[in-house]
């Protein structure tokens, strides 16, 4: 086949080795299939490690139980950050990038060897970080590892290996897309989901480079070869740490579009609108690194204000656009099916018993209504003084990264199992409930943390009663947090059990339908049949969604302005 002529030297021996998926009609490249499986398995392994740590540290912060001693609390806190915030999510994203750059484009994986090399580096780096933190007390420096708190050099090396591995995997994503384009595997523009993943990949590239600017000098500093200013380290570290979460954001929104199309059969209302929203992420979101430096010495008001507001909250604008366009597309698709009663008849008739739909809804609510609103508020320059390093911070990012990203990724996994692993999904009833259990638990975790933080409880603190000033209501809010954590852990155990039972038992089986529990129809194919006329029909306009987003805005304004009021009540400071 002439179209398959090698484009890159390392692709010389690449054969077009694929199978056709009977459900989606997409071509699944076999290299991609194996890479997705390997990355997904490592992601779940890291989720289990991080989840065990999560349970134990939550039972310690729940003041009434206070399980671990200080050493093990801080040790597992360090591991929890590394395994969850980095390893689980990044492994899953790499699976997503391999999938998006090949299967969704009907293309082949053009650089599988390079991709495997990246995967091995990530695996070695991830496991090494776990070992170093478990066996070296001096390396209990928490995820952020602020210089000059010196960990073992291998600690920094493990970060470097993981990051280089991830960077290599990201590079193969770009290679795949270029090769697919040259080989004319797809026509016209990238599909929206791939466009979103591309946004994530571009963000990941410079995020990882900034990570190198922090961790590589830290590595040499730990060997005693150079000095490293603590303020500069913080600046570079957060150039990596915060944008890494924006990678998660972009990848999660891409998955949202995918889940909405797979479970409801949406057609994006306006591709331009959705793509512009991704482009706003691309240009403005990385300024958010400043969120962690708002009460740092040495930086001016102007620098902090411009950066923390993403120039002019333009990245927030991007998220608010997606917050409209995804539910709107769902509303139109459901109304077009005849669910037109009232403002929310379409929502009531959504496939609530389909795991992907439940995960999508929980993920969007937790990310936007809790995570987004609290994030923008505590990321306001002056308000940050009330929130910096209190439990409000983890409260915010558990809503975004756990409630948002993780719930969406878990929901997506249930489709990866039949379509990529080619195993029947077992325990389907569990899968229907899992997003609600996990999401509900995470909501309580976040709310418990945020309300504790509002009362001044600091994060990363083994025992806040030492402070002696904590009001009694903190016991209550920390109990809410603890109970939420137990529920979320149960949701996590359900997820891991479903995944392991499905992939370890039963024969290899080609998938027979896209939906897991909500019927035998194929929303993906239905979405292609939505006509312009249906999209523009007056009866199908997303009026309900408009009400929802305005309700969101009111809640946003109330929370935001309340915080200014709280700030106005404290001591004068300048």
């Amino acid at each position, binding site marked *: 086949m002439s179209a398959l002529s090698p484009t890159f030297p390392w692709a010389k021996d690449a054969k077009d080795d694929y199978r056709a998926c009977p459900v989606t009609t997409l071509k699944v490249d076999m290299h991609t299939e194996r890479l997705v499986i390997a990355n997904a398995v490592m992601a779940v392994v890291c989720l289990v490690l991080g989840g065990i740590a999560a349970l134990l540290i939550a039972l310690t912060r729940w003041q009434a139980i206070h399980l671990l001693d*200080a050493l093990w609390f*801080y040790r597992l806190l360090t591991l929890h950050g590394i395994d969850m915030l980095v390893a689980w999510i990044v492994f899953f994203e790499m699976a997503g990038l391999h999938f998006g750059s090949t299967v969704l484009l009907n293309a082949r994986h053009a650089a599988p060897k390079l991709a495997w090399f990246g995967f091995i580096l990530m695996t070695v780096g991830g496991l090494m970080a776990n070992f170093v933190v478990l066996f070296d007390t001096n390396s*209990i420096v928490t995820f952020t590892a*602020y210089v*000059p*708190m010196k960990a073992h050099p291998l600690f920094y090396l493990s970060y470097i290996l993981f990051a280089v591995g991830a960077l290599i995997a990201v590079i193969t994503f770009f290679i795949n897309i270029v090769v697919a384009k040259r080989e004319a595997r797809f*026509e016209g*523009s990238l*599909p*929206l989901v791939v466009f979103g993943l591309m946004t994530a990949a571009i963000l990941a590239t410079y995020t990882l480079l900034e990570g190198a600017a922090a961790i590589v000098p830290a590595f040499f500093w730990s060997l005693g070869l150079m000095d490293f200013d*603590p303020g500069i380290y913080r600046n570079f570290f957060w150039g990596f740490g915060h944008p890494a979460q924006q990678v998660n954001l972009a990848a999660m929104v891409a998955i949202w579009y995918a889940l909405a*199309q*797979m479970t409801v059969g949406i057609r994006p209302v*306006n*591709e*331009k609108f959705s793509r512009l929203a991704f482009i706003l992420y691309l240009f403005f979101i990385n300024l958010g690194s400043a969120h962690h*430096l*708002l*009460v*740092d*010495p*040495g930086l*001016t*008001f102007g620098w902090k204000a411009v950066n923390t*507001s993403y120039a002019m*909250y333009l990245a*927030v604008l991007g998220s608010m*656009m997606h917050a*409209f366009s995804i539910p*709107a597309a769902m509303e139109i698709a459901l109304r077009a099916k005849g669910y037109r009663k009232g403002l929310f008849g379409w929502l009531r008739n959504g496939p609530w018993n389909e795991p992907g739909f439940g995960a999508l809804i929980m993920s969007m609510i937790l990310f936007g209504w809790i995570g987004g609103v609290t994030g923008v508020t505590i990321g*306001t*320059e*002056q308000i*940050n*003084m*009330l929130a910096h*390093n*209190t439990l409000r911070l983890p409260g915010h990012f558990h809503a975004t990264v756990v409630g948002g990203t993780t719930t969406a990724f878990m929901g997506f996994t249930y489709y990866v199992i039949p379509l990529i692993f080619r195993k029947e999904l077992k325990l389907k009833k569990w899968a229907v409930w899992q997003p609600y259990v996990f999401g509900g638990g995470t909501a309580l975790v976040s709310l418990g943390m945020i309300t504790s933080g509002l009362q*001044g409880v*600091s*994060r*990363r*603190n083994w025992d806040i009663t*030492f*402070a*002696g*000033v904590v*009001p009694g209501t903190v016991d209550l809010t920390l109990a809410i947090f603890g109970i939420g954590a137990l529920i979320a852990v149960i949701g996590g155990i359900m997820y891991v059990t479903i995944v392991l039972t499905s992939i370890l038992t039963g024969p290899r089986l080609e998938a027979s339908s896209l939906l897991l529990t909500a019927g035998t129809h194929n929303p993906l194919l239905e979405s*292609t049949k939505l006509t312009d006329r249906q999209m*523009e029909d007056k009866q199908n*306009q997303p009026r309900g*969604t*408009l009400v929802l*987003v305005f309700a969101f*805005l009111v809640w*946003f304004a109330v929370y935001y302005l309340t915080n200014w009021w709280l*700030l106005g009540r*404290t001591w004068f*400071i*300048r």
Partner: protein
Amino acid sequence: MLAPEQTWWKPMGRLEKTWLTVALVWCIFLTIMMPLWYFMGKQNVPTETYRTTPQEFAATVNDFVAKYQIGEENGIPVVAPPPGSDVYLRASTWQWYPILQLEKGKEYRLHISSMEYNHGFSLQPVNINLQVVPGYDYVATITPTSVGEFTIVCNEYCFLGHHTMVGKIIVK
């Protein structure tokens, strides 16, 4: 998930335009709030910073304590500086030094720095939180508006004794 039709650059619908406009106005409001508060609000993030070294800062703290000490509590000096003066607070593993006694409604220039790691100045229950970075002398000009005993919690992880790092400010 599927490739779009060839021409997807289409005008936005009425509802999209409405929401985009409203969202943009909200973003502009969020942006304006910060400079507005900067010029009109009484609680702003301090920016005044000087380079220092742990040795230099520790020496300044010692001079300061020697000059204004009025008592001692659990081995830590209690210091009552005059209103309007420069006040020094040293963060180290795992101690805030010294205990400050201030007057309500009077302004002080509070210098904070660290002896080794990052620390977090978290004044409770007032709930003012600042980052303390070694090598930087961070100056917060503060005016206490309430009286009582206030706790300084360290809220930046500073190794295994982190949670025991608790200090005090007394306001009369």
